[in-house]
């Protein structure tokens, strides 16, 4: 009775990247014998922990990260289900809580606009749908941006006591952000019907821009995570500047095209992909394709660097959690 582990590596070639070593041998019917069988192997995975920085071997580092994403997928799924189930089991309104924030935010701005507190410019579609869409996208970006630090803080106990693929927490985090986003996007269906918005084919590419927006947010959040975990000042600062950040992002108004206001579209990382996604969702045409593409493309290397920073900083952060 061989284990699954042995079947896949019949010649005892279980010399695997170090992260694989965390895997526990699978169990067969005769539960007691599999350890002895596994022990029979002559060559085995060897883990080495030393003071050396893993960045000295970048190829291996990237491979380890990719491997841990793969190994952590099931854990991520379990944790995701746990959080979602746990989240709504003790509420009366349940999933309604996912809808509420963007509706409330939109309602506030619609009210202010009707009171002529500010002007939106020519939105080409109904202002309510315009603001609602912007709000939903902004919320996704901000959720993604705040996710890494929130994930780390929420799972301090788990991280500091158990060794598991740390990348799974990021999968859970991204999963939760996307889950909330999808639920909120459902709001657009009644909104489109009520305000008679024409559906364009470009709505099909919108998910690409939205995904880029979420990944860019997550990458920036990841880069801030080590400092944010050590110094709570970071978290406080972020919650303080968020309203300003939202204001300089063209959510409740049409993006400025004249200098120096147009500069904001270039320095605010939230702007280009949000504008592109919203144009694709609502208008069918866009003047933000080039900036969106640049920021989308930049998101990939930024995300890679952020993942490396995440992986390297976790052991140091654990030390400071317990010291």
């Amino acid at each position, binding site marked *: 009775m061989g284990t699954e582990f042995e079947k896949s590596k019949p010649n005892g070639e279980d010399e695997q990247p170090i992260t694989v070593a*965390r895997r526990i041998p699978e169990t067969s019917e005769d539960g007691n014998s599999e350890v002895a069988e596994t022990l029979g192997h002559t060559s085995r995975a060897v883990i080495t922990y030393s003071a050396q920085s893993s960045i000295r071997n970048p190829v291996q580092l990237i491979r380890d990260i990719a491997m841990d994403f793969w190994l952590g997928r099931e854990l991520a799924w379990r944790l995701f289900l746990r959080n979602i189930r746990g989240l709504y089991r003790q509420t009366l309104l349940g999933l309604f809580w996912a809808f509420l924030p963007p509706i409330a935010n939109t309602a506030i701005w619609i009210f202010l606009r009707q009171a002529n507190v500010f002007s939106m410019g020519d939105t080409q579609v109904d202002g309510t749908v315009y603001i609602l869409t912007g709000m939903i996208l902004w919320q996704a970006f901000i959720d993604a941006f705040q996710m890494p630090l929130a994930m780390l803080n929420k799972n301090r106990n788990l991280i500091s006591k158990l060794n598991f693929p740390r990348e799974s927490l990021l999968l859970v985090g991204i999963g939760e952000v996307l889950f909330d986003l999808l639920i909120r996007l459902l709001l657009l269906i009644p909104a489109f019907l009520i305000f008679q918005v024409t559906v364009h084919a470009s709505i099909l590419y919108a998910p690409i821009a939205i995904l880029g927006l979420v990944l860019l947010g997550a990458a920036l959040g990841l880069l801030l995570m080590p400092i944010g975990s050590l*110094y709570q000042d970071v978290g406080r600062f972020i919650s303080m500047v968020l309203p300003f950040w939202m204001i300089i992002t063209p959510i409740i108004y049409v993006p400025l095209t004249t200098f120096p206001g147009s500069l904001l579209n270039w320095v605010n990382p939230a702007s280009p992909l949000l504008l592109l996604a919203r144009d694709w969702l609502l208008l069918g045409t866009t003047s933000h394709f080039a900036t969106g593409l640049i920021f989308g493309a930049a998101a990939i290397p930024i995300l890679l660097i952020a993942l490396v920073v995440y992986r390297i900083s976790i052991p140091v952060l654990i030390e400071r959690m317990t010291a």
Partner: protein
Amino acid sequence: MNLSRSSSSDLILDVDHVWKVYCRNLKRAMWYGLKDVGREIVGGGRDRSHQNLRTGEFFAVRDASFQIRRGECLAMIGPNGAGKSTMLKMINGLIKPDSGSIQISGKIGALIELGTGFNPILSGRENIYINAAVLGMRKREVDSLMEKIVEFAELGHVINDPIKTYSSGMRVRLGFSIAANLRPELLLMDEVLAVGDVGFRMKCFKHLNELVKQGVSIVLVTHAVGMLQRVATRSVVFGQGKIVHDGDLETGCTIYEEMLGASDRIRAKKKEESGRAGEIGSVEVCNELMEPQAEFETGEMVRLRIQINAREKIKDARLVVALCSPVHGVLSSVSTPYQGIHFDVDLPGRVITLEIPKIPFLIGAYHFNISLFGPEKVDFYHRSSLRGVFRIVGPPTDGNGYGINGITKLQHSWKING
């Protein structure tokens, strides 16, 4: 030392000259943490030379080396803050050594805190899936083990109820049961044996013994040294970050008990003041031949030679001697009046010897607390604690029910009736 090239293929853990630096000052620790992250990212590494401590830093682990072979159960013991848990965290890969290396050849399972990751709202069954996933198992594997886990935890009747309705003992049982059924090659356990009721604890020990027999290696960290002999065969004793003993369990436990005593002794010495009319001077533990000796076997003669110094003559003095264990406290207290001994102490003093013909105690470290009184209750001269430290080193005890165990050797006999 390189495991992959080493011929001894049954070596599962090799800790090689490992150092770990910590910082207790919170503000500094945060700043150093940030600098360390930065240094790691630019590839600087952290292999700092041993002398190069930054302000406020200290060595939590210094130059620790030890190895574990397959099927060995090792106990890491030592006082609080001696570096045991730090060592365990490094072996588990949670934190990195600052110098030296740790090589592990096999799959690690860690029981650092039972039930980490339980969600109180979800049922026991749902939580088994989550907990097992955290520990690296897939759903299919858990499915095949589900019955075993539930049965071992003895929770069949409540497994579909939310965890928040469980008692703390039930949660512990569930946590141990999940981890115990994972079957790693190296199992790390931190203070998890001290929980649960006695019956379940025995079951855990039995299970651990079975694992060891199957070739699983175990590293236990605990303060409850009394329970260790049920599973552990070897001990590594940490003192202030250093390994002070690596070898058999009995000696290790004795050294640990002595260390506990030593820290008390330093405290006691500070309190002591001078200038009394009479005081306890030198104290020596001797054998039958009145030669100083520190190690005895159960049943041997122990003589305690007590020098009493006097500045004034003490008429009708009383001496009270308590034999103590650092772990269990006072084991027995005797006094000179009890046996009708009355004596005076003239200037400059005199020597009194207490003879214990057959020391009844079993393996461990012991010491005496000695007090000097005059004839009346209130005539107190001096009390001297933690004197005459000695060890009982044999014969071996047995915690598995085949020999004798505990603190003292009981005079006894068995009769089979019917």
